[in-house]
């Protein structure tokens, strides 16, 4: 028996109301189509502008499996470039990040501006009249940025980013505006976690309000044993649907868990973090006017906003899903700092410590469960994955912003995801580099 079956005659019949077929997680042909039709086929998160603040800065990223470079040119304009020499195909950039006015391919030294144009080739007399330098720039991705979040696509027929993901971006505004005037800065160190599972297991989980009381039993038990009740995530125990959290359809595949109504005081419900007492005392002594509000923005937002297909804004982190193969994914957690003239810098020391908590005591258990899902889903005789929770209980309603909303354990987010997934996978929009 081969591990990967070839694609059935199409995608028909694989996504049903309330259940999806296991091959969506295990079939390599489906994975390959996702890498063009979802990643780059729709607006796909690439980078945050704070990672390339100055002219001529760049970062290298992936757009699906494509290696791409996000650059700022000398005038500060953003570009998305396919990292592929137009001569014979080598990558022109081999660094993860840096500063460069030009990318010179190490193989035969064709040299490209950081805006993509081919600037020079060695021994140019070897090229005759048919050689058109203007047509030999690096492939360009359509990029747009919203409040520092840079997205890219190769789909030239999509509406502008703000129209396409308008609802999700309005929720992102609330995540960004917790401290008026503050800017989010990505810190360069990250948690990079390997999951030997399909990337969608991670997206599925990002708005799964059903799992925490169970999948995170280790964290919850440890906290209770050490600190009693009252610290973070206690709202995930018991009948969560009787609580105040909700999930919502944030449109076009985006999904949202809102936990904010469960949080009476952010600082009081924070997870423990090294240096907590020392810095709380220092902040209160040095900045009495803003201290309590400042301590609150140490703590995660109480929002999980997932922007299709790869950006998960959770707590204070940006998690980015990087699929590597049908059963292998990197999950990258970018820590964020919050900077404003009137915000105590000590807040960020505590934010760094707090953003180490969940990758240590929470996420690893989920990743282990995703891997076990992948193992289970490889069994050919069992076809279906059930995503029908609260589908027909009458619990969903028109909530804030007119969005379909449900109790937190509702699998509405998964159904929202699969609807958009199918639409993109069946789309015959042309993917084209500029």
């Amino acid at each position, binding site marked *: 028996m081969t591990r990967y079956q070839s694609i059935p005659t199409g995608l028909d019949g694989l996504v049903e109301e309330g259940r999806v077929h296991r091959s969506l997680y295990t079939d390599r042909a489906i994975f390959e189509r996702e890498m063009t039709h979802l990643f780059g086929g729709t607006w796909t998160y690439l980078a945050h502008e704070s990672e390339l603040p100055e002219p001529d800065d760049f970062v290298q990223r992936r757009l699906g499996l494509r290696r791409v470079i996000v650059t700022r040119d000398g005038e500060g304009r953003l570009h998305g470039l396919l990292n592929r020499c137009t001569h014979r195909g080598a990558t022109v950039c081999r660094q993860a990040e840096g500063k460069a006015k030009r990318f010179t391919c190490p193989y035969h030294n064709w040299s490209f501006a950081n805006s993509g144009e081919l600037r020079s080739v060695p021994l140019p007399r070897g090229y005759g009249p048919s050689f058109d330098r203007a047509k030999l720039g690096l492939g360009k991705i359509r990029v747009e940025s919203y409040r520092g979040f840079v997205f890219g696509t190769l789909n030239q027929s999509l509406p502008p980013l703000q129209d396409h993901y308008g609802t999700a971006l309005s929720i992102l505004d609330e995540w960004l505006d917790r401290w008026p005037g503050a800017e989010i800065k990505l810190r*360069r*160190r990250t948690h990079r976690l390997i999951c030997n599972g399909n990337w969608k297991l991670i997206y599925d989980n990002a708005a799964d309000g059903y799992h925490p009381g169970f999948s995170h039993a280790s964290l919850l038990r440890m906290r209770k*044993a050490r600190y009693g009740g009252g610290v973070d995530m206690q709202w995930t125990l018991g009948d969560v649907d009787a609580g105040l959290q909700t999930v919502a359809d944030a449109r076009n595949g985006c999904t949202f868990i809102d936990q904010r109504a469960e949080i009476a005081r952010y600082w009081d419900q924070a997870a423990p*973090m*090294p240096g907590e007492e020392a810095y709380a005392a*220092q902040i209160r002594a040095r900045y009495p006017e803003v201290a309590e509000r400042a301590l609150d923005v140490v703590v995660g937002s109480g929002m999980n906003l997932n922007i299709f297909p790869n950006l998960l804004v959770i707590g204070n982190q940006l998690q980015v899903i990087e699929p590597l193969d049908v059963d292998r994914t*990197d999950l990258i957690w970018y820590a964020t*700092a919050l900077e404003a003239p009137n915000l105590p810098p000590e807040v960020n020391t505590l934010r760094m410590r707090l953003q180490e908590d969940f990758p240590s005591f929470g996420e*690893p*258990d989920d990743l282990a469960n995703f891997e076990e899902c992948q193992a289970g889903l490889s069994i050919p005789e069992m076809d279906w994955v059930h995503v029908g929770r609260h589908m027909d209980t009458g619990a969903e309603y028109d909530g804030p912003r007119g969005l379909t909303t449900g109790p937190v354990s509702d699998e509405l987010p998964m159904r929202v995801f699969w609807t958009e997934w199918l639409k993109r996978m069946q789309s015959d929009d042309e993917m084209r580099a500029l």
Partner: protein
Amino acid sequence: MDDFLDDGIMGAGFTLEQILTDAVTSPYLDDSYYDLLRQDMAEWEAMGQPLSEAERASHEALILQENWLLDRRAYEKWLHLYSARCLYWIPAADGLPAPEVADPQHQVTIAFDDRRRLGDRIVWLRTGVASAQIPVSHTAHLSSGFVRVPTVREGEVKIRSSFLCHEIRAGHPVQVLSGWMGHVLVEEEGSWKIGRKLVCLLDAGRAHHNLTFLV
């Protein structure tokens, strides 16, 4: 397994019950502690001297005992090797991490455990319900190249060493971690304790599969 862990054979230790109530606040990680870590980082760069017989008997033996207790999963005894104001730190940057990329006051790390978070980690490992530790990790630590690195700090000893750590969980491939460690030893109540342990992974900047065990 606990039967083998009596004090007589493996040294003194805590019980899990003691760890539950040990250090449930975190008052000592302040600006001056972060200053100390920056000073440490500068000092680790220096050339070290091979240990004398006496230093081997106290300092190298302590680090080898630490490895042994970790490999035996004797975490309650392991914590007993640490000082009251201790730190267990794994930067998320490669090599001898430069301050501008690895200063923990401004960056996240793979692990940055003060005494309280070490207690959390042990209690977490002992819950028995962490899916990431079902089945549990077993490790084999190998340390060598112990040198004493000069420090300006009175009463502290800096020991640098190279390490390899193999980790296996049933059903998963062997993971190999390697790099160097820095141990800052301090005297507390008449014996040497680990004040600060720095673990610099060769591949700290890359993705890892499940680092929920202790290195």
